[in-house]
């Protein structure tokens, strides 16, 4: 069966009344759960997986796809409306999305996020269909040295999202890496920096830190000034949709983010986070309005949202073509497929083409359902901002607390969240950009693991990082990233625009 025939066949499977309902239901459930702080796509899929067990395999997979995309969009919704990221990948969307919401532009931000996600998801699926075997083969040729180089370049390059103090940037980056090293070392099993505490042996979890740094900190910032949440007294229909200028400024970032996110999705690890940060960085550098970034630039929403969604499609390449999940979310999708009797891998497309193409089609249907459902609901989401500010604060605070607890049913996570919130408040006051801390916390373990794996494989030969072509090229790019700004600074030019992060 050729690709076009397969896609047509898959669409015939997907576009039945039952499966369309499943897609819409999954997207709605996923969005509602994704809105809750602490419950990102993985949490939402885990919670809602039992719902799909009573369904047939094709219907279950379609519903799961809807849940996955819906929960990603739900996380973006809270990022934009109330500055609480539903997941780490929504942090960069939050920078400009929330700024837009404060200016009464929440509707356009949400609409662009929905459309950008749909375009990226659709193009990503096309890429998946066209290039899955080839890309999977390329991805398998990369090893720990290449992954280390990618992670290092990503960490250094992406931590410079905003201009400002280099020293503060280093401190905050090191702080994130420090937090990432607390706990049990995954390679040797040694407990590091735990002071004998069993609770710390499990490490510092990412989500409580993110919720504390951005959620609780925002609550404190609103409390200090007794106001400041975005508030709308009325919502006109025209205010819900982007203007022509906003549309024209969004298309290029969406397409760039799609390409970037899809390629990054081929890399194992935190692809969604890296792709959204990378896209923001790119858009900031190429934008004709760099001074707007951090203050409500539509490109800062369009690009990262597209990249995040495209990375999801990219992650499906190794999952479907090789049966290898490259992230927690795709691992959960793999588990769900196996439970339904579907075993992804090289034999799937030959032995069960209807299943393979059905899964592909389900991704498209889930993506479409997200757009069809959430675009009309933009007004409903934005209407949240019409609630009395005190009530909104109450709901945010309660959901932040409960969402954090339900991650692992851990009181320790709550304590981490509270400490992160207080520390985050102080750091925000001192103009520290908090995003690099989260980036370091996400990438740090991956960076260390790939570094040590590289040395294991090369038997201690450090030149492995420069003798392998891809790794050497990436490290060369890193040197340029570090050297060029210094050179330009000596000449009195700044390579990075001046806006401060939130």
């Amino acid at each position, binding site marked *: 069966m050729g690709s076009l025939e397969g896609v047509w066949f898959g669409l015939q499977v997907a576009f039945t009344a039952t499966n369309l309902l499943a897609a819409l239901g999954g997207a709605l459930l996923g969005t509602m*759960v994704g809105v809750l702080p602490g419950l990102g796509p993985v949490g939402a899929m885990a*919670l809602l997986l039992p719902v799909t067990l009573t369904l047939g395999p094709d219907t279950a997979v379609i519903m799961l796809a809807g849940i996955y995309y819906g929960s990603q969009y739900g996380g973006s919704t809270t990022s934009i409306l109330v500055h609480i990221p539903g997941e780490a990948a929504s942090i960069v969307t939050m920078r400009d999305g929330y700024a837009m919401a404060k200016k009464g532009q929440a509707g356009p931000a949400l609409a662009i996020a929905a459309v950008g996600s749909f375009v990226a998801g659709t193009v990503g699926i096309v890429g998946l269909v066209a290039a899955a075997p080839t890309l999977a083969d390329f991805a398998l040729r990369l090893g720990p040295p290449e992954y280390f180089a990618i992670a290092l370049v990503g960490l250094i390059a992406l931590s410079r999202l905003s201009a400002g*103090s280099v*020293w*503060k*940037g*280093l*401190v905050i*980056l*090191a702080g994130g*890496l*420090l937090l990432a*090293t607390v706990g049990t*070392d995954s*390679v*040797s099993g*040694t407990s*590091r*920096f735990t002071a004998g505490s069993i609770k710390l042996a499990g490490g510092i979890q990412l989500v409580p830190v993110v919720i504390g740094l951005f959620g609780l900190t925002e*609550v*404190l910032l609103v*409390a*200090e*000034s*007794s*106001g400041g949440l975005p508030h709308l007294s009325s919502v006109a229909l025209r205010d819900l949709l982007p203007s022509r200028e906003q549309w024209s400024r969004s298309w290029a970032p969406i397409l760039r983010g799609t390409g970037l996110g899809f390629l990054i999705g081929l890399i194992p690890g935190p692809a969604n986070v890296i792709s959204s940060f990378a896209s923001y960085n790119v858009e900031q550098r190429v934008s004709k309005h760099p001074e707007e970034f951090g203050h409500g630039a539509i490109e800062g929403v369009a690009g990262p949202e597209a990249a995040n969604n495209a990375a999801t499609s990219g992650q499906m390449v190794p999952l479907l073509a090789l049966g290898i999940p490259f992230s927690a979310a795709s691992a959960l999708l793999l588990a769900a497929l196996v439970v339904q009797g579907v075993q992804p891998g090289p034999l799937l497309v030959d032995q069960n083409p209807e299943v393979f193409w059905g899964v592909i089609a389900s991704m498209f249907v889930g993506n479409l359902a997200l757009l069809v459902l959430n675009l009309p609901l933009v007004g409903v989401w934005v209407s949240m901002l019409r609630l*009395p500010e*005190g*009530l909104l*604060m*109450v*709901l945010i*605070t*309660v*959901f932040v*607390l*409960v969402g954090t*607890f*339900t991650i692992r*049913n851990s*009181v320790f996570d*709550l*304590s981490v*969240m*509270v400490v992160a*919130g*207080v520390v985050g*408040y*102080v750091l925000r*006051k*001192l103009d520290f950009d908090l995003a690099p801390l989260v980036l370091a916390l996400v990438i740090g373990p991956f*960076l*260390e693991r790939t*570094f*040590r794996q590289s*040395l*294991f494989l090369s*038997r*201690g030969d*450090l030149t492995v990082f420069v003798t392998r072509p891809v790794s050497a090229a990436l490290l060369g790019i890193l040197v340029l990233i570090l050297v060029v700004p210094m050179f330009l600074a000596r000449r009195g030019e700044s390579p990075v625009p001046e806006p401060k992060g939130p």
Partner: protein
Amino acid sequence: MTADEGRRGPSRHAMNLTVAVLGTVGALGYLWAASTYDFGTLAQPGPSVFPLIAVGPLLLVGSVGLGVATWRGRGEASGEVGWPSVAGWSRMAAITAAVTVYAWGLPFLGHITAASIVVLTVLKVMDLWSWGIRIIAAFAIAFLSYWLFADLLGSPLPRGPFGV
């Protein structure tokens, strides 16, 4: 809302220096702790390698650099910190205390009671409604959140001493 008084808090210069000192001390302590773990060999790097060669030095360099730049007054100490007024500090302290009570008291008080305390505190801080309505709203929101997470989503939440 009560009228805000003058803003209170340490200067940016003092705060940056504090962060620099804490960072430097923290980095040295981190490096010392890391040195107690196995370094291994180049072929089999141990758990102390990454902290010793990357994290610790990065934090030390950043903290010392911040401190020196602040001391020399090179841009790091410019501008004032927008600290809140006394009333603002009180509001933040109240919310911080309430969420801390939730964080530490949850296993003993249960979600309903602990969440009600948080809701009451936030409503008082935001000066919304009368006390009667606040109490009703507190329990309503606590029960609603319990139903949403524990019953609907199946994420168990602790119950208090009276099963509430």
